[in-house]
């Protein structure tokens, strides 16, 4: 145990986290150069493209230190978005230390601070690393000054490096060995391991990623998941080498995997504690939270023939994403589909993109919604996350919507702009503090619906990228709600309906109309788009018809070329949904929730 180090790398987006991980992996020799590919831990295309990590990943790096001893360095990579902050917290809870990576040219950024606070909450040893020192615009002295003044860390602890060029990597490896404490725990105690991730393998079922805090687990043991109260027989345990390496046991301090014949990842919960069935621990490890969807939207196939295929794909997709939930749903405008729950808007976009890419589906998402609570005249309390089931307004006694407590951090100079944004989003009960000079921490309560509606994008915009944001759901509060419908050429498109606060209905209706005007391409006839509450039209735009679309010459040599062009256009049109005679592109449905600034 004394030669094990468990650590994570945390950084603001684009500060070079994946590149540094790549260099450390190469340095340790765990994978040979021939099999190496960049961003080795970001195994999904979507992660590489967006430059974000969605799934946690872990890898074991064997390292012989200058002190002559061999060490096991377990790197736990974490997701980088507020939608997945719970997963991040479980990963950090599995470490004793972190590398806090800072771009030498950009300096300390919002996410740097937010990440630092999260690491401090878990009492982790923090090693500041100044990356990208090879850049001409790198200013190491300035970053060191920020580390001192803004982060309150010892700047002389920080290590300069260029992950791109591979300089400084050895010093980082040495610092991990020297400064991050070895894990503690008793291998003979009752087993306590925390699950920080679970991935699906089509041959082996669920691969549990865990950190053992106390005790020892071996193949053949019967384990109990303490929150789920289920038991499983362990088939195999091992370490995250490349490829996975089977071991006899995992003991206190180890990071590794467990395969226990668990069919889907939905059968385990992130943060749950694993113990032995015959010698259980009394209390689970702290920090467990049930992951609950907060944003809901319906998914429809663009071609209704693809419904079955969508059903099969969702089932397969669900195998590897426990946070995603779904059930059958149908829409008058869009036909049969599924109502789905997501952790947040990014999660929603990721699911959409992965379904399209990995399962080759063309799908439409309805406008995302939160889950509202209505008390009806007869005293019944119902939860509605789908505007299609909005109750008859006459039957509603009380309408309520979920509220969050948002925690934001940003430089003082953006105070005015952030407060204005929060007020617009119906924020209330704010408290302010100054964690370090020039930096503000704002805690404020807001309706979740207004947060999913472009809040994060706008916060980033008004703080020029320096604002960080996190939230917890606190309770339901009474609110004056109405159903906003959208009509396209007179036809109500139920998938575009939204439940909104009465006070914002007009503005939201107008925005929706404008957004749709941008998204729906001109067609051969004019298209009226209207927003309506009850029977009343509250907003309206018109998309004018285009008047000219014709090739002048069409003789022998032009016909094939022209046909190919039409075939291509037809294919593009297949990605649009016909509502009456109007072709609505996929992007239109989610666009009406997006801000002008993105």
């Amino acid at each position, binding site marked *: 145990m004394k030669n094990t180090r468990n650590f994570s790398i945390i950084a603001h987006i684009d500060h070079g986290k994946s590149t540094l991980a790549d260099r450390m992996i190469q340095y340790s020799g765990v994978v040979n150069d021939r099999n190496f590919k960049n961003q080795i831990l970001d195994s999904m295309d979507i992660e590489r493209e967006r430059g974000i990590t969605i799934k946690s990943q872990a890898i074991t790096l064997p390292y012989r230190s200058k002190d002559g001893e061999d060490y096991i360095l377990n790197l736990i990579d974490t997701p980088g978005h507020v939608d997945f902050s719970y997963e991040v917290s479980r990963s950090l809870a599995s470490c004793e230390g972190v590398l806090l990576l800072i771009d030498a040219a950009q300096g300390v950024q919002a996410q740097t601070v937010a990440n630092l606070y999260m690491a401090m909450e878990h009492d982790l040893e923090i090693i500041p690393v100044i990356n990208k020192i090879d850049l001409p615009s790198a200013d190491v002295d300035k970053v060191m000054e920020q580390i001192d003044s803004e982060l309150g860390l010892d700047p002389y602890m920080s290590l300069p490096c260029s992950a791109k060029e591979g300089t400084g990597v050895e010093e980082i490896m040495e610092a991990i060995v020297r400064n991050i404490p070895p894990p503690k725990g008793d291998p003979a105690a009752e087993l306590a391991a925390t699950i920080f991730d679970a991935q699906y393998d089509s041959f082996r079922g669920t691969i549990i990623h865990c950190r053992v805090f106390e005790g020892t687990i071996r193949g053949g043991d019967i384990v109990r998941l303490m929150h789920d109260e289920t038991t499983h027989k362990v088939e195999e345990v091992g370490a995250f080498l490349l490829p996975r390496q089977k071991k006899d046991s995992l003991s206190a301090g180890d990071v590794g995997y467990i395969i226990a014949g668990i069919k889907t990842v939905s059968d385990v919960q992130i943060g749950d504690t694993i113990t032995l069935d015959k010698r259980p621990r009394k209390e689970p490890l702290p920090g467990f939270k049930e992951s609950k969807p907060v944003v809901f939207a319906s998914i429809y196939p663009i071609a209704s023939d693809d419904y079955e295929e969508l059903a099969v794909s969702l089932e397969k997709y669900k195998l590897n994403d426990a946070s995603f939930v779904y059930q059958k749903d149908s829409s008058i405008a869009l036909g049969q589909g599924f109502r789905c729950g997501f952790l947040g808007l990014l999660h929603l976009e990721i699911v959409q993109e992965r379904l399209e890419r990995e399962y080759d589906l063309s799908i439409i998402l309805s406008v995302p919604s939160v889950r509202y609570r209505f008390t009806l005249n007869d005293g019944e309390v119902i939860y509605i996350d789908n505007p299609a089931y909005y109750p008859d307004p006459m039957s509603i006694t009380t309408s309520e919507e979920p509220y969050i407590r948002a925690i934001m951090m940003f430089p003082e100079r953006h105070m005015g702009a952030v407060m204005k944004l929060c007020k617009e989003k119906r924020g209330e009960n704010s408290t302010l503090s100054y964690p370090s000079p020039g930096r503000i921490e704002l805690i404020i309560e807001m309706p979740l619906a207004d947060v999913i509606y472009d809040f994060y994008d706008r916060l980033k915009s008004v703080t020029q990228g320096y604002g960080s944001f996190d939230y917890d759901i606190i309770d339901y509060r009474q609110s004056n709600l109405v159903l906003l419908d959208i009509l396209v050429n007179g036809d109500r498109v139920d998938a575009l309906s939204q439940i909104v606060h009465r006070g914002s209905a007009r503005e939201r209706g107008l925005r929706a109309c404008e957004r749709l005007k941008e998204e729906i391409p001109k*067609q*051969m*006839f004019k298209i009226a788009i209207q927003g309506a509450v009850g029977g009343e039209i509250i907003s309206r735009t018109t998309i004018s*018809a*285009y*008047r*000219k*679309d*014709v*090739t*002048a*010459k*069409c*003789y*022998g*040599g032009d*016909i*094939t070329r*022209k*046909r190919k062009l*039409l*075939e291509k*256009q*037809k294919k593009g*049109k297949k990605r649009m949904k016909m509502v*009456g*005679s109007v072709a609505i592109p996929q992007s239109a449905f989610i666009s009406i929730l997006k801000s002008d600034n993105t």
Partner: protein
Amino acid sequence: MVPGIYIHIPFCLSKCGYCDFYSVTSTEKISPFIKSLLKEMEMYHGCFSRFDTLYLGGGTPSLLDSAQIEEIIDGIRKHFPLSADTEVTIEANPGDLSREAAESLFKTGINRISIGIQSFDEHILSFLGRRHSSIDAISAIEHIRNAGFDNMGLDLIYGVLGQNMESWMNTLRKALSFRPEHLSCYQLTIEPSTPLGIQYRAGEIDPPDEDLLYDFFMRTSELLEASGYSHYEVSNFARGDECMSKHNRKYWDHTPYLGLGPAAHSFYGNRRWWNHRCVDRYIEEINKGIPPIEKSEILTREQLRLEALYLGLRTKMGIDMEEFSKQNGCDLLDEKGALLRTMEQEGLITITDNRLCPTRSGLLVSDSLPLL
């Protein structure tokens, strides 16, 4: 459905900035080309029972002298049976139509001539890179009439950068003064691989305004129909139905055609094939005894249907829905009834006697109509 023959003559004295038809500016290959062309005819000997149109296009077919044209037409007669009433068309540059040239063309048996006038405005002609002047154009038309041609078509271009409605109307009225049997009025299309396309991509020229093009198109159609011409295809007008281009109509109703010469396209049944777009390669392959075909495609039922739809909707005759259903196994009213009614209400098509026809403004969006 009697097939037609197209012969591509790939030679020009100079290239015009807008044109993306295949041609070369050196004339030294003319005579080996003709030899190869005759051999290509031989390759298809006996494959077809009858043709009723022959079209010499280019390039600039009027660059050939009458002996060369006779040689080509004799070759055709030798290898392919032609109907007695065969329409024999040649495309000509006004600069090539001297009195003598017009007279000898008439003697070769050509009975229809399509003259590339493009404009009677000198500025427009020079912008387009034409080598003739409007004076040349006028005397060419006179020589053609005097030589005895009673089926003459004039090609014009509008929507040229810097052209206003007045300039275009003047050109159109001037053209009408010669009472041509046929008029083709093409909106200038900026093709990517042309000098104009390169200038456009570099941002050196702007495309004309969409509303202005709409007006050009509508005014052209109104004026010509008022002058007794039938607007029978997007860009084509005929002085009475008998003056429509018999040959070009084959392209629009899936009648078979045989294309000879470099880059020429052929169509038969469900197959389309085309020759190498290179005169050297064309000659080389033929010398080796290989058909100079670059590629061919077999059209699926769905592709044939799409083509039938978009080609049909380019013409005033439109689509006979019963015939369409027979040919393509698809009842348009059943499948697209609601959309078609919307289009009808919008004034883009008419639906009468089981016939789907584009209106004047419908012709202007006829690339979109088949996407319904």
